[in-house]
């Protein structure tokens, strides 16, 4: 998360759009706020940024396909028994909320250097901008106010954008979401990972 210096400076009109956003009604469309996990105090995110990240995490790690992701659901051909087993495991996957993904992201990002922190916060503001959504072909609503299929479409647009800086922004969010999610032991069973071989290690340490 250290490498998005000047993110918006390089974004096509990004700074101008943000400035303009203060003068148009679209900018008044606010982030849909999410509740924090019990006992969680924010170290890095504002409540709005927390809510944007949580909404992104929900889509990055959604268990069900929308039509946007379904059309790209090019799952690898494997014997039916293997796929059935995998599908059953997938159903057990905890949601991002269940593992407090965004709270963990907040804690992870807290020590970020000032310049990188500023870039990431600008990214989240832009990603949830109704105006930016509209001018880039999306609905005139913040990401957090969109329907799931619209949200998937926005993520897909950023993932494959012709603007390199939007692809960078997508990767910044996707990678940290996946790192926290799949680095959490609560998710291991859902992907068939038995976890570290502690017994083997203990057997030689005695």
């Amino acid at each position, binding site marked *: 998360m250290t490498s998005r210096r000047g993110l918006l400076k390089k974004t096509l009109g990004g700074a101008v759009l943000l400035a303009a956003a203060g003068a148009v009604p679209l900018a008044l469309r606010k982030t849909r706020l999410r509740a924090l996990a019990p006992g969680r105090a924010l170290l890095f995110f504002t409540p709005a940024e927390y809510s944007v990240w949580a909404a992104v995490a929900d889509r990055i790690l959604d268990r069900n396909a929308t039509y946007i992701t379904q059309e790209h659901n090019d799952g690898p051909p494997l014997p039916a028994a293997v796929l059935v087993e995998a599908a059953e495991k997938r159903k057990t996957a905890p949601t991002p909320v269940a593992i407090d993904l965004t709270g963990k992201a907040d804690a992870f990002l807290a*020590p970020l250097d000032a310049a990188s922190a500023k870039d990431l916060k600008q990214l989240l503001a832009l990603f949830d901008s109704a105006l930016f959504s509209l001018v880039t072909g999306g609905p005139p609503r913040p990401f957090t106010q969109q329907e799931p299929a619209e949200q998937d479409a926005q993520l897909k647009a950023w993932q*494959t954008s012709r603007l390199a800086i939007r692809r960078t922004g997508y990767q910044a969010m996707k990678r940290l979401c996946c790192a926290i999610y799949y680095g959490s032991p609560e998710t291991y069973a859902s992907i068939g990972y038995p976890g570290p071989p502690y017994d083997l290690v203990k057997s030689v340490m005695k």
Partner: protein
Amino acid sequence: MIFKGNQVTQDLVLKPDVCIVGSGPGGSMAASRLSAQGAKVVVLEEGGYHQKDEFDMQEATAFPRLYQDRGNRATADLSIAVLQGRAVGGGTVVNWTTSYRTPDDVINRWRDEGSILTPALLKPHFDEVEQRLGIQKVDYDDTNANNRSLYDGCKKLGWQVDTTRRNVRGCLRTGYCGMGCPVDAKQSAALTYLPDAIAKGADLYADCRVTRIDWNGKRAQAVIGVVLDPASGQYTGRTIRVEPKVIVVSGGALNSPALLLRSGIRQGPVGEKTWLHPVVAVGAMYKSRIEGFYGAPQSVASHHFAHRDPGAGFFMEVAPTHPMITGIAMPGFGAPLRSRMALLPHLASCISLMIDGFHGDQGGTVSLRPDGGPRLDYPFNEVHYECFREGMKAMARAHLANGAESITTFHATPLVLTKESDLAQIDHAPLGPNLFAAFTAHQMGGCRMGSDPKTSVVNPQLRHHSLENLFVADGSVFPTSLGVNPMESIYGISSWAAQHIHAALS
């Protein structure tokens, strides 16, 4: 002795013979050799001092603790994820143990730059390193299914392939080398050359971030470091000032040029021609369980395509499939991502590493971030893309030959390939920054050695061209990439350079 950050309770001024910045293969070796010759050595290491009991085999613990930028280092545009160690012992604590000597043709190529190295000069150093680190060739029977799939596929195609050599003793083959060996089987610098140096009187300060080198005229005068709290990583308010006779910079190929730049030591192409062995990957799905998260993570390599002409060469190896690094790399989001991840036990992971620096490619550039850390830019061009495409095709062919059900590429919109005729799709899939997953675990160059001060940073003895008591001993001095995993080369060249560093003491 080894001192942790919380043991430094007052500002220190130290006056040893030698100050070494960094404790990876380059710094640890220099510390060992110079201490053995009677020099008083102080090593400053930004990373923490961690031992086997702390290695819990969890990625969420290991990456923030043992990797640069808490596991999040990347090029400025995030197009290449950078795996680089940060601990007492440097990258040797977290690498996957693959140990190769520098190829003879690479050593000879460097002579075009003015290098005085020869295979014969380096041989005794590599001999000693291999003995000290227990480097031995892996038996085929000791490889895991993840590695065997590449081996068997290459054999079926008649391609060169072999097991690798690893620096382990008593390896349990748990598969967790990348998170710190929990049983001390991996012979990292923290278990070998650093203890050797300390036994001869060296001192090592962990949790010490070197901010600059003070210099005047032709001499470097002092190394200035700030002390970090081992638990929080935050500055404690304490500083360490070292005023040695000789300074050795061994921070690795990104941190060493950044330190020179922060210090205003800008003679020569500092930070330029940084080589990464850029990696692209494919995932092969098998009917059988592969369980690539267990077993020696990297024990097979194919150099069949290392000397392509035209086109940049590449070599193929294997990466472990632990959930976090796989999830980061796996393309897509939502249900498709979940579907692929749910098949993790059936996934074989294959990587292709481009041998950069030999085809007119300029590599990357290290400059400074606003916080003073290294910023890395590495632009791709058609030389890279052609190599990446051919690498993906070769990996897919090997796994299809071995009976994989399908191959998934790591493009933003992944391809799923099941037969030879599908491979042409790779030629048409879009490539560009962040349109496919790219990585590096091998950082080289940036303080290249050579005889011409205009085109190199250090001279053939690794002494800085302008500062007579400043040396660089790490992978940053390589004029090109290697075509093999770099750890043993760094050890060997640092061992060779120690005689020149020692001579500078007098």
